[in-house]
């Protein structure tokens, strides 16, 4: 196999593992289908927006939970937004963490929320690094004259 084929094979395997391990779900596949000649970087652009949005939301969540008197409805709002954005891009595990988060908010459970925030941050960090790796792989494939494999 030449380098392009190797990278393409690796890309497919890596993408598959992200699905199998539930980092990504079918919504991400839907997103990939929306990219075309007029919007070739659509997925990259959306994921980049997601990173920016997520970091802001994590920051908002941290600050809200640091307040002397925690406003759980405010915390729940941030978690709800995060759930929405992660759901929209198919970030399955992050989304599930957000669902858990909201449940703790409803109970006014500060400790639960704080633990959840840590887990959420972890999930986000792992997802982000996986995406970064995926994008690097794409660049390598393209640079060597190959095309990005489509996942069926």
């Amino acid at each position, binding site marked *: 196999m030449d380098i392009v084929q190797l990278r393409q094979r690796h890309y497919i395997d890596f993408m598959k593992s992200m699905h199998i391990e539930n980092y990504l779900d079918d919504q991400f596949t*839907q997103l990939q289908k929306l990219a075309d000649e007029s919007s070739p970087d659509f997925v990259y652009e959306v994921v980049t927006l*997601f990173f920016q*949005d997520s970091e802001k939301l994590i920051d908002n969540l941290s600050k809200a939970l640091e307040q002397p008197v925690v406003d759980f409805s405010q915390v729940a709002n941030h978690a709800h*937004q995060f759930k929405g954005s992660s759901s929209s891009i*198919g970030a399955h595990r992050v989304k599930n963490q957000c669902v858990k988060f909201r449940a703790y908010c409803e109970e006014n459970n500060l400790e639960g929320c704080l633990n959840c925030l840590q887990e959420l941050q972890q999930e986000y960090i792992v997802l982000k690094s996986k995406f970064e790796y995926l994008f690097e792989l794409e660049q390598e494939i393209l640079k060597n004259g190959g095309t990005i494999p489509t996942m069926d």
Partner: protein
Amino acid sequence: MALDAQFHVLAVDDSLIDRKLIERLLKSSSFEVTVVDSGNKALEFLGLLDQTNKEESDSINFHDDNHESKYLRDIPVVIMSSENIPARINRCLEEGAEEFFLKPVQLSDVDKLKPHLTRSSKPKQHDYYKNTSNKRKSKDECVSPNKSKMKITTDHELSAFVTL
């Protein structure tokens, strides 16, 4: 298709990611798209909002009732939400929404729009695509009681989806 190119959709969502997504979904289905981030901005875009009173408030000031009546009556409205709350969905449909889509919206959902757009006797139609805020406290703000004011005819080629 040639007919699709005539339809202009106004999409409203306070989530940046969802705006990006809906824009791409609609464009890849050959709609012309305008995306705004709030109900007020949507109404401003339509030229309906009295801009002398710009602060965000729960009541939306229209230019005048005649203008409003003439403009909004027949615009098909589609509601979207990330939350599957039957009571809320039914209320929207009862108040005149054509469809309800659960987020995340997919191409198959966008395909369902076309019948609503082509059903009118007018060759060009407007659908409003409006996502309500993800801030739960303002969820009802954009829909009703003002929603009844949105059922008004329009000459503009604008479509909108309303999302809760």
